[in-house]
């Protein structure tokens, strides 16, 4: 994975609360055996009508959304299914970060393991972001700060290990494999075997 230290972008805002991973990546697209090419499918049924034409009212279809790589989402974004196709799709579409006041556990885990910077900010900052789509923000992953226009800087919540892996571009499997000796000892020493 390539290191991610800093993201600078305008925001695109999807204020709906409880956006589930079925909205982010409908199940009918999960028959793929690859992780590539899912950007076309992300938010598919919100982006396109039944004839495949873009829905003008959906935020990602607005001209000003072009080139935005930071998604500001409503509370509890990514709830529901564990499908990793959701963050794969968001990354493939061009998003580098998702900001909310609350992210569903599995989605957040999946996102961070793929280099999609999924961060949680306080309710006041979240509200400001929801009210100001298109704001130019800077996410400093290394120092876990978010800078809003006017040099306002706030601290955001990101697990220290996830931050380290993002900043250093570390693959977590490699880290786990370094513990194989310990894993073998654990298996040998267990009082009962599964």
């Amino acid at each position, binding site marked *: 994975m390539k290191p991610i230290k800093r993201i600078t972008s305008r925001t695109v805002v999807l*204020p*709906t*609360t*409880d956006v*589930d991973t*079925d*909205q982010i990546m*409908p*199940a*009918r697209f*999960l*028959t*793929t*055996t*690859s*992780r590539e090419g899912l950007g076309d499918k992300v938010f598919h*049924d919100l982006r396109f009508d*039944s004839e495949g034409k873009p829905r003008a009212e959906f935020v990602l279809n607005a001209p000003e959304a072009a080139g935005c790589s930071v998604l500001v989402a*409503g*509370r*509890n974004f990514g*709830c*529901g*299914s*564990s*499908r*990793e196709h959701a963050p794969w799709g968001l990354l493939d579409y061009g998003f580098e970060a998702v900001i909310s006041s*609350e992210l*569903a*556990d*599995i989605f957040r*885990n*999946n996102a961070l*393991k*793929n280099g999609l910077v999924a961060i949680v900010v306080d309710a006041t900052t979240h509200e400001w972001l929801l009210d100001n789509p298109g704001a130019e923000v800077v996410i400093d992953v290394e120092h876990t700060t978010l800078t809003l226009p006017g040099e306002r800087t706030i601290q955001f919540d990101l*697990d*220290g*290990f996830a931050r*380290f892996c993002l900043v250093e571009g570390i693959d*977590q*499997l490699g*880290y*786990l*494999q370094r*513990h*194989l000796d*310990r*894993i073998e000892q*654990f*298996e040998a020493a267990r009082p*009962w075997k*599964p």
Partner: protein
Amino acid sequence: MSIPRTLFEKVWRQHVVVEETADTPAVLYVDLHIVHEVTTPQAFSMLREQGLPVRRPDLTLATLDHSTPTTPVSTFKDLLVAGEGAARQVRQMEKNCSDFGLDLLGFGSGKRGIVHVIGPELGATQPGKTIVCGDSHTSTHGAFGALAFGIGTTEVGHVLATQCLLQRKPKTLAVNIAGALPAGVTAKDLILAVIGTIGVDGGTGHVIEYRGPAIEALDMEARMTICNMSIEGGARAGMIAPDDTTFGYLQGRERVPQGAAWDAAVERWRSLRSDDDAVFDRAVDIDAATLVPMVTFGTNPGMVVGIDDPVPASSDASFRKALAYMQVETGKPMTANAVDVVFVGSCTNGRLSDIEEAARVLAGHRVADGVRMLVVPGSEQVKAEAEARGLDEVFISAGAEWREAGCSMCLGMNGDIAAPGQLCVSTSNRNFEGRQGIGARTVLASPATAAASAIAGRVADPRKYL
């Protein structure tokens, strides 16, 4: 004096290979890894790219469920019923299992089925185990006092390669259910009421333990329904302390210890309960005696009302959007809505007792004109047992479709879907927009409510048919 601990803490501690620190998560050992065709292909590709084997094929249980057709399959042509992508995915799973030495419970095995139905059915799910699967409803297995949770595909790769996961220790939430469920009110109604109470994000970052007399009174299949929907409350996992009901269910099953080893296991399992003075991070209390059959009215499982209660009002934009999608009116009960499709099945309510519950209501009645009712057993074994009891005849003679095992219309990725605008009363777990087909409107309910709705042609109270 030992420190009082919760059930979750006891199971967690027994599986920590490397303790967590401020800077690093714990390395947690996985006792059972269940794999299916949808969330594993990219993980197997990773193993191939890195030249890695599956480290513990003996602790890996593989089946096909999500993208399989629910019409009989014997050839590739049959498989295409579910679509070309789905057929390819099933074939890829068969190849992956064969290449990596996994025993696949596939077509014709007699043991294929939804991951969360077959784990318990085979006795692979046991108290005190850590169980993971690339599927959020893995929380189901917590009904046995296992710590069971859904993971993503990257983590599936981690478990295949190392049998471990990197995890931060979650918090604990006690959900105490006092009283007893009234007649005609089921475990499904109870868990919908719990989610309605805590909200769809009420459990985020937590492992729930369901406790109290109403939980202790439930059989194992009902407990599985409860734990299954923990994720719908945002929780990582849901757990219930194992007891004689648990041991009675497991005894004699294919993959449980036998003889003296069984006795030793039961003795060990008896210690898996929260100590009397164990402290939970949070607690919620609900009285089962006050509950009625519950149905959802919106587009998440927390938007739920009693069967006779009016749909509430709110000025919240997301709430109003949900009601507009559902074409449901504030102030009217859900029984005002006509039904197009009824689905009985899924990892929530696709077990024998669920099918029996639906059959009991449906017996002697007909599915209303214009209503399509699909009954999909959770596993090949559930299907065989239901047929041995003649339940298939009850459904077929009432005008319902009796199908092969699979996830089917719960997520509609195998071609079993409802049409745009159709209202589907479903025993599954998610009423998300488009979950059961683009534009399809889902009302979550118990198998009894689903069957009653099939008869009435509108959302209906099952207590009138009992």
